[in-house]
C-alpha cells in the first residue's frame, strides 16, 4: 500500500485544486510500480490552507497555476520515486523515460509497462543488459508504434536503434547495472518509440530474491 499526504499554503479554489492533484497523481504515484499489486488502501489526500498570502488561483490557464502545478508534480514525484527506491528487496531505483509517443498518456503507459515487467526487473537484478525484455515490455504496453522506430538505451549505452539491435560493450553495460545497484542508485532506461511529441516516465525497482522472502512471511 502507498499512502500520501500533501499540504500547501497556496490559495486555490476547490475545483482547480482537485484537477491539479489529479494531474500530479497521474504524473507521479500512478507511474510507480514495485510488484504489480494494486492495494485496497492506496490514497493521496492533499490540503491547501491558503495562508501564504498569495493571489487566489481560480483557473488552470495562467502562469501561477502552471507554476503551482509544477511544484505539486515535483513533490509528488519526489515522494513517488522514494517509494519505488524503497521497493521490497530492491537494490536500485529504475527510471524509465519514454519519448516519441503520440501523447503524454501513451508514453506514460509504455514507460509503466517496462517498469512493471518482472523479466526486466529480474534482469536488472541479475545485472543483465537485456534489451530484448525491454523491447518486449514496450511492445505489449497496448500502445501501437512502428517497431522500426524503437530506440533503447541503458544509462548512456545505446542498445537498439531504429529497431535494430546494436553491438555494445556488454561488460560495460553490466558493470553500469552492478555499480548502480551497489550504491542503491538509479538505473536509467531511455526508450524512443517514434517521432511524436509525447513523453513520460515511470519508476520501479529490480526484482530480488528478498522480495519473495519478505512476502512469503508477511501474511494477512
Amino acid at each position: 500500500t502507498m499512502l500520501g499526504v500533501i499540504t500547501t499554503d497556496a490559495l486555490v479554489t476547490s475545483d482547480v485544486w482537485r484537477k491539479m492533484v489529479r494531474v500530479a497523481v497521474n504524473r507521479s504515484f500512478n507511474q510507480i510500480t514495485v510488484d504489480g499489486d494494486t492495494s485496497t488502501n492506496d490514497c493521496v489526500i492533499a490540503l491547501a490552507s491558503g495562508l501564504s498570502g498569495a493571489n487566489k488561483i481560480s483557473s488552470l490557464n495562467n502562469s501561477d497555476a502552471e507554476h503551482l502545478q509544477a511544484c505539486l508534480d515535483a513533490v509528488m514525484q519526489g515522494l513517488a520515486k522514494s517509494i519505488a527506491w524503497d521497493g521490497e528487496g530492491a537494490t536500485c531505483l529504475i527510471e524509465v523515460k519514454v519519448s516519441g509517443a503520440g501523447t503524454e498518456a501513451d508514453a506514460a503507459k509504455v514507460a509503466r509497462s517496462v517498469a512493471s515487467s518482472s523479466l526486466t526487473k529480474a534482469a536488472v537484478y541479475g545485472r543483465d543488459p537485456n534489451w530484448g525484455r525491454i523491447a518486449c515490455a514496450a511492445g505489449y504496453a497496448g500502445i501501437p508504434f512502428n517497431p522500426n522506430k524503437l530506440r533503447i538505451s541503458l544509462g548512456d549505452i545505446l542498445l537498439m536503434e531504429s529497431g535494430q539491435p546494436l553491438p555494445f560493450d556488454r561488460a560495460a553495460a553490466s558493470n553500469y547495472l552492478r555499480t548502480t545497484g551497489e550504491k542503491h542508485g538509479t538505473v536509467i532506461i531511455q526508450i524512443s518509440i517514434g517521432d511524436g511529441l509525447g513523453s513520460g516516465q515511470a519508476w520501479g525497482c529490480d526484482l530480488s530474491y528478498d522480495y519473495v522472502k519478505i512476502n512469503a512471511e508477511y501474511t494477512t
Partner: protein
Amino acid sequence: VVSAQQDVSNYIPAAPILLPEGPWHQVPGGVAAAKGFKAAGMYGGLRAVGEKPDLALVTCDVDAISAGAFTTNVVAAAPVLYCKEALETSTTARAILINAGQANAATGDAGYQDVIDCSHALAELLQLKPEQVLIESTGVIGQRIKKEPLLKSLPDLVNLLSSTVQGADSAAVAITTTDLVSKSIAIESEVGGTRVRVGGMAKGSGMIHPNMA
C-alpha cells in the same frame, strides 16, 4: 504531561531525496512546512511487533481546500470509502488521521463503523465536524484496526501536534509498514511573487502498483 516528541531517526532513516529540478528549493518540515499545518506521530499500540510510532495526525488551523485520489481496486478499504464520501460532502477538511498496522480492508460493515467511530472521536477532541476529519490506514488486509488503543491515544496525539520538523518526521515514520526509510519532502517557490510552500509525506514498499482516480 505528554513526553516531548521522540527522535524518530533511530527507528528508520529518511529516504534520499529524489526531487526533480525546477524553480524551487527544498525546505525542512515535510507536511508541516506550509503555513497552517501541524503534524505528530506516536506509538499507539497498534503495530503487531515493536514500538515504532504507528499513529499519525496532520491538522490545518483553517478549513483547508481538500482533494484526494483513491485506489480503483474494487475491494476498497473502509477508510477509502469513508474519505470518498467525505470529499463528496465537503470541499474542505481540517485533519487527517493515519494508522499503520491494520489496513481495515475487507472488514465489512464493522470496519466501516470503526472508521466512523475514530473520525467522530477525533472531531470531538478537535471540535470539528466529523466530515472534516479524513482517515488513511495501512497494514494487514482483513484485520480491523485496534480501535481501543487508537481511541485511547488520541488525546496524547493531539497534544503532540507541532509545526516543527520533528512533528513532521514523527508522522512520516508513523505511517510506514515494511518501509526501510521514511519519505518526507517540502519545497518553497515564488508563485505570483509570493513565497508558497508545498510539502508531503508518503509510505510504501510492497503491494505497489497504484491506479488511483
